[in-house]
């Protein structure tokens, strides 16, 4: 958005002055972020998130993974200011998460599309455009642009209650992008989409990253996360279990894989000996990868066996499994 790019540097400058620790490259920062749900009498009921320390950098696609009840949605809600932290802080663009002005640069696609069903696609985008204080002309342009982008041109004047789940998802995404946000939070972005729609969504996410935006997504569809995410965090029962680059996390460092071709069985046996002794024409020697699914399930099992400890030996497990 033209106006946003104009105001962005001034916002950052302002924040630098008021918050000396503010680093414009860090979009999201949580410090000891904890959320405990309490009952009516104020007694702790559920510890939904426990001392989360996280830094999400500008321009990356960050995935939040975890089984149901692991604290993914709680983290997103804390980052959006929908929940207040029990302890710790959540900073978005260097501002407290409860500060409304930060929302000017955020786009959010909820888990299910909580939209006003009696509005049409055009009215929906116009309404959200108004909430960003966009002038009428700009709203109209932006709505037309986004409807085209998400492929809903044929249904733009139909009420959302007539939409299929996939169409609702698309209009949800369009409304999350209405302000051309710098940070996009996506909760289960591919849920309800057909394989083609899933592909388009993933392409869109990568395109957003290429435009310099930061994307944070949480998903149960591990293949999707593996396809698009640069870094992931795995949560289990409110604890951060794993954090790092997808490539690094999936690498099995203790193993070496040799790939060769055009070798007879006799030769193969010989090569084995020779490699064991001297080495031959090596076609490929690399670190093999397990699947994200293996990693994820490994962490969950490990956490069930040893609660409260950050998963360390995951790679060992995947190593033995990949053999």
């Amino acid at each position, binding site marked *: 958005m033209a106006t946003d790019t104009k105001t962005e540097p001034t916002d950052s400058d302002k924040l630098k002055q008021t918050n000396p620790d503010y680093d414009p490259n860090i979009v999201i920062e949580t410090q000891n972020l904890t959320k405990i749900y309490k009952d009516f009498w104020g007694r702790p009921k559920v510890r939904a998130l426990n001392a989360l320390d996280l830094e999400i950098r500008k321009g990356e696609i960050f995935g939040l993974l975890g089984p149901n009840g692991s604290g993914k949605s709680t983290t997103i809600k804390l980052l959006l200011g929908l929940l207040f932290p029990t302890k710790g802080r959540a900073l978005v663009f260097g501002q407290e998460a409860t500060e*409304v002005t930060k929302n000017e640069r955020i786009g959010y696609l909820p888990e299910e599309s909580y939209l006003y069903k*009696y509005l049409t696609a055009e009215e929906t985008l116009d309404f959200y455009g108004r909430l960003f204080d966009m002038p009428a002309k700009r709203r109209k342009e932006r709505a037309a642009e986004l409807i085209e982008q998400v492929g809903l041109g044929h249904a733009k004047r139909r009420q959302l209650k007539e939409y299929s789940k996939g169409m609702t998802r698309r209009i949800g995404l369009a409304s999350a992008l209405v302000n051309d946000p710098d940070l996009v939070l996506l909760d289960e972005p591919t849920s309800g989409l057909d394989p083609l729609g899933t592909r388009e969504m993933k392409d869109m996410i990568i395109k957003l990253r290429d435009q310099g935006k930061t994307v944070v997504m949480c998903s149960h569809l591990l293949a999707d996360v593996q396809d698009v995410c640069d870094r992931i965090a795995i949560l289990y029962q409110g604890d951060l279990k794993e954090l790092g680059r997808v490539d690094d996390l999936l690498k099995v460092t203790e193993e070496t894989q040799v790939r060769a071709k055009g070798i007879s069985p006799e030769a193969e046996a010989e090569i084995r000996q020779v490699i064991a002794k001297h080495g031959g024409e090596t076609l490929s020697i690399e670190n093999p990868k397990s699947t994200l699914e293996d990693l994820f399930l490994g962490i969950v099992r490990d956490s069930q066996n040893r609660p409260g400890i950050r998963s360390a030996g995951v790679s060992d497990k995947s190593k033995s499994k990949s053999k």
Partner: protein
Amino acid sequence: MNVDTQTLTSFPDWLASNSLLFLIVVVAAIIVSVVFGFLVAAFRHGPFEGFYVLAQVVGQAVPDFLKSSPRRIWAIGMLAVKEALRRKVVLATFAIFALTLLFGGWFMNSNSEKPDRIYVNFVMFGTQLLVLMMGMLISSFSLPDDIKNKTIYTIVTKPVRATEIVIGRLLGFGLLSTALLALMGVLSFIFVSRGLEHTHQIVGQTQTLAAFVPVSGEFSSLDKKRISENAILEAQTNRQNGHSHRLEVLVDIRKPSDPQPSNTSNIVNERVLDDGTTEYQMIVCSATAGHTHRVFVEGQGESAKITLGPPVGFFRARNPIYSDSLQFYDREGEPKTKGINVGNENKRRSYIGGGNPRQETSLAKVQFNFSSFYETRFPNLQKGDDGEQVLPLEMDIAVFRSFKDDVEKRVTAGIQFESVPNNEAGNRFVSDMLDFETNEFTIQTLPISRKLVGKVFAPDGTLVEQGQYDLFDDFAKNGQLKLTLKCRDYNQYLGVAQPDVYFRPSDAPYAWNFFKGYVGIWCQMIIVIAIGVALSTSLSAPITMLGTIVIIVLGFFSSFVQELASPNNIGGGPIESLIRVVTQQNMTSDLDTNAFITIVKNADFGISYLLYGLSFLAPDFSKFNFSNELSAGYSVSNSRLLIALSLTLVFSFGFTLLGYFSLKTREIAK
């Protein structure tokens, strides 16, 4: 009389006397909110962190209000309108209203003494009930449903402030309800004015003078009294809207020096007599069911065609000039704040006696003091029969008879005017006593001639001169005038309150008055919506509705609640009353004086004050209810309108503030 004393309060007076109370309430509300807010925050976060959280919330309130974007407020408001329309509550409300109007006419008694009052009360009460219910429903369900459906997530994750969510909703629902109320108002006006629209025809073969018969006796076949003693012919109309009228041909003889009759449309015969005087024969229509009709005559003599016009006398909006204060004097002439108590006759009125045969010179009287009584306030003075201008003085006086006497004879009262000299050295104008028969249960008009016969007294009480003096130029030269009312019959009493005696210089247009009446309903509706929106920020829809109903009920009965919570009630406060109930002691017997009772009494005192204070949280809805004025035919004073609008503003702002803080401090997600 139907207009109560609050109609006399002028806006500046009200503002002056209520500003302090308002300030106290605001300061008390701030203190209570801060303490309560701190307790909640301390409970959640601990005392130090709690203080920080509270300071942060309070600190953000000012920028949140100042930086609210009109575009966002408008967007949320319009969404609220669409949502409310989708719920069909508005449509249902309108459908019920339309049905009521369609069939309501069947059940109205247009034959009553004041059918316009029945019609006006019906539409006003119906509209009020329906729009208040609708306002409560649309405002109570909106936000809780948004939170339940999580659609609110898509709003609060945009740069939308809590102020914008609350004000936007108030604006949206307010606009929608205003549009509906306006429509209902227009339809009500048409219903009321068309509902009583009718005319009559003369019973007989022709619609001419031939249908008239000579007058016989005091009563006609309709068993109604004759309109005038000068009547020579009479006829009657057909029944229409449940009533009929009596028509009479009157004879009016005027000298050449006399003014011509002001109305010529009803003259059926006109001839010059031998002595030079002119005889006019005119047809008049009797007043029945609160109205009369203008009579139109086409042509002259026997064959003149006679028609009756539309009803005259319904839907007045009297614009009275009330006195500024009231002073009672007892039999000895001593000033008193109240007159005689004649029992539980009327709570508003106080009574003055007419003396008795043993004490013939009763000095009991009531004095109405007018200030700013200037001629400019009477722009359209009519001329009386003597050619002098007359001021219409209207009265609604209650009569209390301490013995039956001749029940056919009405109790006589007398009025007298007196000037108020600027200083002690000034002479005093005192008019002669004008006696008249009181007419209980009706508003009687007494034309006061501008030229009054009276006397001028020097400050020491000696008579300076006597003669005819001008009411404006002599009596009320400085704008001040005293009007004294006395009862002139022994052993009978007259009851008055301040709004019961007034001058009626002009009437306001009825449509304008009707509009003002609906502004009163509008005020109530806006407050109800503000309450609904405020409560719905933290409560679920059914609880919000319940809370709104409680506040509305408190508002409608606020004076009763305040009376109930008054610490000086006979029988004590709630705990003491309970003790009396349990121990079967009556309200007036003294309780034992011991430590327990002392504690109980002190506790009751505290509870009473708390309840008394809480009763101010609900707006006094009687301040917004103008249907009494409207149905009784009085113009709603601008002061009352301003008071209602100010109260609406204050309460709406107060509840908006409550809604803001409650939304700001709650977690939207669960």
